[in-house]
């Protein structure tokens, strides 16, 4: 019998529906696989009892020929999503012991569709990081290693636990979030598929806020079809989030397999900065070639403000973070370090509870919003953001979708990047998408000479996730799927 954990969502869904396998069997296989993969440190909290109970309920529904689109499918949930009565700490010390009395809209949508929760996944603290090294619960190990090397590599971040868990087959798929690249960069580092939908497509209610004008949730999955299935279940119109956009959620799976004949694919010249590795350049050219062979038209375009997206992001995101993270004061939830008075309690709690990267960003945010600097930094950055968005608005008159590399390199080693700005540069190709509120998908496109996954990114028009799935599937068909060798 084949290992049940190797089934994609689509494959498992068919076998569950046909009663060839039970949801409980599938769930038990994952619980056993998680047990064997502890060394990867992907999970920060496991919920096997809850998983078994949910799987049994799914089996009862399936036996009656009922059930939702994810009935009996075991998922991992990023620690950023509020899950009722279950560890929800954004992998921060400051949320020690926090168990919400409510469920996030995204996870509620998934449970309503019949999915099974395996546990909570590791991540960078408050989603601030590109290597998962800022987690209070320690780093996550990438299942991928270089050829002939036992050296550990990071899975990227901030959704490092999600990417590793999907790549290591210790969940069928995972939820993730993306503020500057936190879905797409780890997906690229682990040979998985990750989509950040259009801002407003997925409700942010019940998801721990980092930068509210940039945050969007999306899935990390093993292939493009599974990403379409997951996004359909996660997305909704939600009265509890005023930025949730009032548009029906399409059946994204229908876009899979559609021809790209006549599709205009933009290649932005600004995404080829001096010093970009020849391997990344080659995989990008190959991606364009595959689409061309299937009848797409390749069009060179210009997005002139690309280089300013990252510096503008490092004003806007910390500014919003400093406001959002003001709520962690040791009073209503989480850690409290007693002080001489109330202010001293706040200051000691926040000094002990936030890690160094979070403290840096809160301080930067506080500084750029402080009296006398607001116009010079924050307003300026928001103006640059308008220009970045206008670049894309102009591009859409020439092209239907944009193809770029997902990351400037393959996965790196823990401790290899210590300079904060060097770490930020990981998001150089992904952050523009958040700044403009657009959808972007990362899809594996090949392996580096060292045997590590490399990903391509497709950027779409607002609410045109369907074209992303359609195009990414064509790349996936040409590139094939990539699976890490099990060494753990």
């Amino acid at each position: 019998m084949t290992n049940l954990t190797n089934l994609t969502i689509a494959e498992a869904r068919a076998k569950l529906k046909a009663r060839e396998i039970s949801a409980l069997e599938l769930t038990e296989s994952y619980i056993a696989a998680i047990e064997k993969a502890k060394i990867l440190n992907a999970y920060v909290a496991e919920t096997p009892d809850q998983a078994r109970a949910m799987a049994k309920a799914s089996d009862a529904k399936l036996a009656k020929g009922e059930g939702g689109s994810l009935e009996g499918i075991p998922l991992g949930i990023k620690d950023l999503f509020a899950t009722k009565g279950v560890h929800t700490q954004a992998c921060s010390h400051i949320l020690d012991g926090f168990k919400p009395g409510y469920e996030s809209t995204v996870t509620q949508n998934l449970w309503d569709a019949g999915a099974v929760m395996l546990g909570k996944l590791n991540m960078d603290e408050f989603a601030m990081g590109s290597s998962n090294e800022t987690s209070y619960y320690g780093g996550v190990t990438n299942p991928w290693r270089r050829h002939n090397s036992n050296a550990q590599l990071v899975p990227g971040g901030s959704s490092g636990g999600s990417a590793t868990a999907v790549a290591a087959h210790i969940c069928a798929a995972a939820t993730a979030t993306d503020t500057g690249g936190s879905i797409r960069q780890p997906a690229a580092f682990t040979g998985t598929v990750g989509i950040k939908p259009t801002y407003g497509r997925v409700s942010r209610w019940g998801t721990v806020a980092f930068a509210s004008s940039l945050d969007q949730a999306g899935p990390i999955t093993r292939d493009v079809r599974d990403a379409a299935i997951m996004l359909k279940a996660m997305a909704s119109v939600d009265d509890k989030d005023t930025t949730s956009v009032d548009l029906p959620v399409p059946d994204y799976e229908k876009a899979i397999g559609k021809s790209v004949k006549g599709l205009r694919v933009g290649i932005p010249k600004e995404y080829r900065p001096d010093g970009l590795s020849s391997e990344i350049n080659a995989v990008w050219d190959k991606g364009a070639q595959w689409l061309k062979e299937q009848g797409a038209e390749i069009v060179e375009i210009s997005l002139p403000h690309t280089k300013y997206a990252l510096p503008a992001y490092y004003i806007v995101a910390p500014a919003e973070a400093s406001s959002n993270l003001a709520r962690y004061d040791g009073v209503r939830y989480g850690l409290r370090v007693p002080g001489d008075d109330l202010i001293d309690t706040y200051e000691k709690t926040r000094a002990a509870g936030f890690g160094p990267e979070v403290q840096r960003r809160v301080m930067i945010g506080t500084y750029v919003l402080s009296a006398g600097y607001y116009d010079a930094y924050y307003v300026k950055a928001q103006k640059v953001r308008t220009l970045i968005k206008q670049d894309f608005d102009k591009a859409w008159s020439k092209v239907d979708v944009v193809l770029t590399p997902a990351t400037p390199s393959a996965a790196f080693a823990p401790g290899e990047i210590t300079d904060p700005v060097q770490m930020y540069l990981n998001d150089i190709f992904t952050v523009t998408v958040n700044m403009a509120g657009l959808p972007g998908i990362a899809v594996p496109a090949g392996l580096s000479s060292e045997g590590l996954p490399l990903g391509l990114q497709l950027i779409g028009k607002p609410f045109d996730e369907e074209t992303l799935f359609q195009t990414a599937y064509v790349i996936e068909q040409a590139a094939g799927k990539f699976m890490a060798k099990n060494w753990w």
Partner: protein
Amino acid sequence: MSVDEKTVRRVARLARIKVADADLPKLAGELNVILNFVEQLNEVNVENVEPLTSVVEQNMKKRKDVVTDGHYPKAITQNAAASEDDFFMVPKVVE
């Protein structure tokens, strides 16, 4: 623009994060690296450009100003470090 130790102390106070005097020089250095990085924006001409306020053109959703939720103080205070009679407890703030 760059920050000195005095500014870092002021910002830390505004952010309500305790920073030891010994850590100020290192933190100032780290913040200056980031601030130098964002200085690139000075190259961009933003004359007559409106700041972005929303990436999606949508009228602000409104709802009736009525209570839609609540009446469970126990659930609200259950995660607090200290609570009593459904109130959050903090160190004494008035003498």
